[in-house]
């Protein structure tokens, strides 16, 4: 080949110039990759719709209302006094994801539970007022949650998530 006849410099020699060029190229390719990755993140219009306001004044004791938030169901449950008493009498100590009920509600609105209605196992929607703890029961793989949305039996590792929300007044909550 011509390399031998022309006495050219050894092409694989890694001198400073070659290293600088290759490094610059690597930086370029890396920077170029970013827009292609970032474009898959939620876009500006999705982010603008990331919070909703819900009127809770019409939710009767014992009733579960499902609202859609960020494409997922959120369960809002107005719990009865009986359910509240039962929860109070259950120490969370031996639960899989121990958490007292009081840590899952807002002070002064203890009867109102707001949880993301997505099973923490593999993302199915649990059924309300079902299962042996009168909470939720996930039909996919049999996870059982209590009336506080805590995992009590089955494969799910965590309690139903409590979204970020706040009471705007006694009648309205803002989720997100």
């Amino acid at each position, binding site marked *: 080949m011509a390399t031998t006849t*022309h006495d*050219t*410099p050894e092409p694989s020699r890694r001198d400073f*110039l070659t290293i600088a*060029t290759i490094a610059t190229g690597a930086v370029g390719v890396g920077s170029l990759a970013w827009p292609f990755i970032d474009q898959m993140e939620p876009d500006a*219009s999705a982010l603008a719709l990331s919070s909703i306001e819900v009127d809770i004044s019409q939710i009767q004791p014992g009733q579960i209302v499902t609202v859609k938030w960020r494409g997922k169901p959120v369960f809002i449950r107005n719990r009865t006094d009986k359910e509240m008493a039962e929860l109070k009498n259950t120490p969370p100590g031996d639960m899989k994801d121990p958490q007292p009920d009081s840590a899952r509600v807002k002070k002064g609105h203890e009867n109102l539970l707001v949880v993301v209605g997505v099973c923490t196992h593999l993302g199915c929607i649990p059924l309300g007022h079902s299962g042996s703890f009168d909470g939720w029961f996930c039909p996919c793989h049999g996870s059982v949650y209590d009336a506080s949305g805590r995992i009590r039996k089955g494969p799910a590792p965590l309690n139903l998530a409590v979204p970020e929300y706040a009471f705007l007044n006694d009648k309205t909550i803002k989720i997100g």
Partner: protein
Amino acid sequence: MTSLSKGAALVRQAVLAAGLILVAGSTWATAAEEAYEPAITKQLWSFAGPFGKFDKAQLQRGYKVYKEVCSNCHSMKFVSFRNLSQAGGPGFTEEQVKALAATVKVQDGPNDNGEMFERPGKASDRFPSPFANPEAAKAANNGAVPPDMSLLAKARSAEKSIYTWPINWLLQYQEYGPDYIYSLLNHYGPEDSKVCETGYYNTAYLGSRPCFAMPKPISDGQVTYDDGSKETVEQYSRDVSAFLMWAAEPKLEERKETGFKVIIFLIVFASLLYFTKRKIWANVAH
């Protein structure tokens, strides 16, 4: 040798003839059109050029003109209130945007009873449209639909000249839209002009005749400015043209800033590659 030079001479004559025909043809064609030449003047815009940025105060004034005047007939359906506070825009605060949005009524629903209802606007809402559909817009405006303004500044071109077109990419001339809108608003003729049977006399209108479907939309003093800027048609049209450019191209500042970095990087990289290539080829005659 002789046949060669003869051939070459023949070729040169052919080129010359073709060129002459072309020039003659084009002058003939332009002569026929020369009856009406729209008066469109290029303006200096803060957002032109490689480091161009929108003037936030100007965009805010332009928004005011749009809201109080243009939006009575023109929709702007791709722009949301939230855009008014995003980077590279008019620079309203999020609180101001919420307040602005809350001034409009938006139809939402259906609610739990299956009924549509009206609620105050939110930042995520689009600008409201003045007419329910194009047919209603047409009926209310003498049969001409006022175009949507979201992309108006990119959807109008005044630049057709064969002499400037080949270098405009180098000069970065992309402001033909605002130039045209500005010129249109400033070139309404005397109102008693008898030139137009339909439409309104406007010597900047890009068409075969200087007759524009939109009546003169704004006059001096119509919109109140809080920042002491002149309340003249000239100033209004300058501000609203800038606002329309932003509405059509809200990522303009981000685009130009990124572009500068990218091009500098590519030039540095190309230089390094050039020296690498030269080194590799140093001992090969080529």
